[in-house]
């Protein structure tokens, strides 16, 4: 029988975004880590290079002051006219320090490839498969990178901006040749108008 963990700190977090960046720069002095700035970038987001990703993630997980024990989500984003075209966003959560941080990896258009973090957080397995399924971004080192949500034999990467929505035109008389309005005589079979009462 394992005892429950002590009550974790409530609202206030002891870990500020600046502290996270400082710790990272101390540990990885020659890696370019820059913070994303913008008018409405509401979360603390750090751009990290793809080749150092696994080391940075391992450090974030194992460092006792940071303790980002949980990977919450991974998302791919396609900024089509821009280069680098793709971004993979990792949402990390620290239970003990009650802090969240987003890591972003920017990838180019040809052969977007990024190392897999399934060795750091086992939950990344399906998140990475989903990102591969939607965008075609390869995660090197992933145990079984196959399609997860779409059929196995689907061709294409649906969430890329140049993939169509797959919208099917609803057939009306004005856009389908040969389709006519039903016989007006059939209206006689319709029931009489019902008076509705508001109770």
């Amino acid at each position: 029988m394992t005892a429950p963990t002590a009550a974790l700190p409530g609202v206030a977090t002891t870990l500020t975004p600046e502290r996270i960046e400082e710790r990272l720069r101390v540990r990885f002095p020659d890696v370019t880590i820059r913070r994303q700035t913008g008018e409405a970038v509401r979360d603390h987001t750090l751009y990290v290079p793809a080749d150092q990703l696994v080391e940075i993630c391992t450090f974030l997980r194992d460092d006792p002051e940071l303790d980002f024990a949980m990977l919450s989500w991974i998302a791919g984003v396609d900024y089509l006219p821009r280069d680098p075209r793709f971004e993979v966003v990792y949402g990390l959560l620290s239970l003990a320090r009650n802090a969240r941080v987003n890591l972003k990896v920017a990838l180019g258009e040809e052969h977007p490839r990024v190392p897999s973090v399934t060795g750091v957080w086992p939950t990344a397995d399906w998140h990475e498969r989903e990102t591969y399924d939607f965008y075609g971004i390869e995660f090197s080192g992933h145990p079984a990178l196959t399609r997860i949500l779409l059929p196995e034999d689907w061709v294409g990467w649906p969430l890329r901006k140049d993939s169509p929505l797959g919208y099917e035109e609803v057939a009306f008389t004005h856009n389908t040749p040969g389709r006519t309005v039903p016989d007006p005589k059939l209206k006689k079979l319709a029931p009489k108008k019902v008076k509705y009462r508001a109770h």
Partner: protein
Amino acid sequence: MTDEKNPNPFRTLAEPPKPAPPPQGMSEEDTIREELERGVLFSSVEKMVNWARANAIWPLGFGLACCAIEMMAIVGPRFDISRFGAEVFRASPRQADLMIVAGRVSIKMAPVLRQLYDQMPDPKWVISMGACASCGGVFNNYAILQGVDKIVPVDVYVPGCPPRPEALIHGIMKLQEKILTSRVELGPFPTKKKKSRKAVA
């Protein structure tokens, strides 16, 4: 309830009434005919078979998405489907005769749906429940089949997103009407082969 008053302790109701003695002047044959007419029903095979099929529909438990929850609600105590004979939701398609497609059919699920439909024995019916099953509904995109009637023949469409349980029960009642008025095929009759008259030389 004691033994002296009531020699048969299992009988708690009054004694049933004895049948009336036959009126004078009726022969035995007439009495038998009268008895039969009180307890015998004449109808056609078609009507009887349709009546049996309509009032004991066994649905296949094929809930896909949100409509499945409203389908579960008709099994619940408030909207009771067992009043209509359809409370036995079979898990196996081999034992079911109604497939209620409840929910959106994605393209990955479409071949599975067709296979299940093929596994159901005749006679079988399909109710397309909800907007997503009838025509794609809210979702008009690459992932959802725009109407389950693209792959299986549908008997009743129940619109709604999700349809209220009463609407689904109305759909099942409409299907019962359809069954009661349908023709029944009794299969090919065996024919006697005529012997050839040619002499065998």
